[in-house]
């Protein structure tokens, strides 16, 4: 059990991260309309908050975070990713959020520090 707990602690918990990120997006973008001038501000806020919370998890990971905010004007968007990593320890998490005016896609990749 202790090992499991250790393993729990050491592995990447997707849901937990998703929750963190979703909360942050909600807080920041909320019901706002897309505003080209305010987007950098929002991105900064989301990044800071999310990384701080992720850091607080105290897990031995390097985090990479990518945020995309797109205005909802009828265009399509496709993104894909491929990895060459250690499948056992590293993980990824994608959060898709939208409101009436914009989409927000956040990718978090966590790369474990070899202990």
């Amino acid at each position, binding site marked *: 059990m202790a090992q499991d707990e250790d393993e729990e602690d050491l592995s990447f918990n997707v849901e937990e991260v998703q929750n963190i990120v979703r909360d942050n997006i909600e807080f920041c973008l909320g019901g706002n309309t897309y505003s080209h001038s305010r987007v950098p501000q929002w991105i*900064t806020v989301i990044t800071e908050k999310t*990384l701080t919370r992720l*850091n607080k998890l105290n897990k031995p990971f390097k985090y990479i975070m990518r945020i995309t905010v797109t205005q909802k004007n009828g265009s399509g968007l496709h993104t*894909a990713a*491929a*990895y060459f990593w250690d499948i056992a320890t590293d993980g990824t998490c994608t959060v898709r959020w939208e409101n009436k005016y914009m989409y927000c896609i956040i*990718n978090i990749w966590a790369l474990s520090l070899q202990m």
Partner: protein
Amino acid sequence: MEKTDKSEITYEYTKRRKCFGRQTLFTDHGPELNVNIPPNSAMYKNYILRNPVNVSIQNTGTMSEHWVNSVRAEYTSSGVNHVEGGWPKDINTNDPEAAQRYRRKIEKDDAYIHAVMHLGHSMEHNILQNNAVDMYQIYYSELSSIPPVERSSCHTVNVYREPGSARRPIRSLSWQADGARLASAHADVNFMRCARSLQFSYIWDIENANAPELVITPPQPLLDLQYNPRDQHILVGGLMNGQVGCWDMRKGSETIALCPPHVAHRDLARNVLFINSKTCAEFFSASPDGVVKWWDIRNMNEPTDSMIIDAVRTNNDTQCVENALGISALEYEPTIPTRFMVGTETGLVIGGNRKGKTPLEKLPSKYEAHLGPVYALQRNPTFLKNFLTVGDWTARVWSEDCRESSILWTYPHRTKLTDGAWNPIRFSLLLVTQWDGCLSCWDLLRRRSAPIVTAQLCDEPLLRLRPHEGGLLVACGSSKGTIYLAELSQNLGTADKNDKQLLTHILERENKRERILEARMRELRLKMRQERDGAAHAPDDAARRDADLRDAAADYCLAVAELQARQHALPA
């Protein structure tokens, strides 16, 4: 700015040295779709294409602006009062002794003498230069200024209109002795006019043009109203029915004395004039019935004297009223007490002598003046031998010696001339009023071919004229009962010191000319008579005529020689 504000996120961990460099176990993890958002063409409708888009692009280097000004230097100008200077600090200049001591010390110095010699040289140059040319002299101050070009003018200063709606022609104007009041007599002589209302005459104060000062109410219209030159309150007037009356301004507008009708003139009393007498209460009157009567104010019941103006040829004929000539103008000069002149309706000017015993003595001189009645007759106040007559369309100046013709005359005007007078101050100035309402001034010293000033005072005919004794104002009366007070410009109202001489020359010259012409005419007439009669006349006549002519010829040659001598003398 937000990036630098990031709080430090750190994660600390420890790792054993032996665990460094462990083999990594990487495997591929296939591409997985992250985001798949299909395009939604319905959303396009919410957006429009923005065209044009204004984008400003500048691809230059950035520059900054900065300005610098140097520190300004303040300048002021001030004079310096140089007093003796160069005193050293330790000597009190106010102390005469110390100053004296210092001075003596300096003077003993060698360099002192050399310095003074050196400075003296340049000072001498400046002083000599100053003495040669006076820098502060005003040039041309010793030259007299050129007399300015003479501009004459005449303009109306005041208009006195007859009160009421009546517009009766002015028959006479007279200034009070000191010149503050003007008396005007109005009378409409046209008998056919049915209005038999009283016609008044007025006394005006020249300052107040709104209303006359006093209204004179004669029983009949006044044809002439004259102030007493000695007593400024008494006036006499001649009425239309031949009577003469006397008024006193202090007593009001009614006559104080009126002569009875049976001793009055048989026709209207056209002219009255005061004469010089000890009592200053005597005047004489004339009328178109041809009789001149003398009156005394104190007793107006009968005239003191009367004279019939009938120019008879010899002493034996008596003068009778049937042949008398109607009088239209009367003249009297206070300095020549017993003589007077009358102008008749036939155009003759007859000189009269009150003290004459025989008819010839009573009317010694006769001049054929005009083609119509003589309207004005006045002696020149300075040159008593010359008098002015105005009649038909000309104004003429006569000399008493020349019987045949006037010595000076104006050109025939287009309009009738109604009255004329000499200016009392500028004695070469003639003032003449015309039927077209013009006042023209003729200056004998300036131009004799034309008047120097003509002023159109009004549209209706001007009938009477009387200059003020000051010489600058002239009162002109019109046929509508309005008096215009005109002012002449300064140069017309004053006389220069040379004027009297110059005018004397002119008049003498003209006189001489006329006399020579007269002599020639007489000669020609004599010759014609001789030829016609065939009889030889007394040679002494011829001798006399010849003598006259020889005199004239001699005078002329003398004058020419004189002129030539002067001309030759000039260049030499």
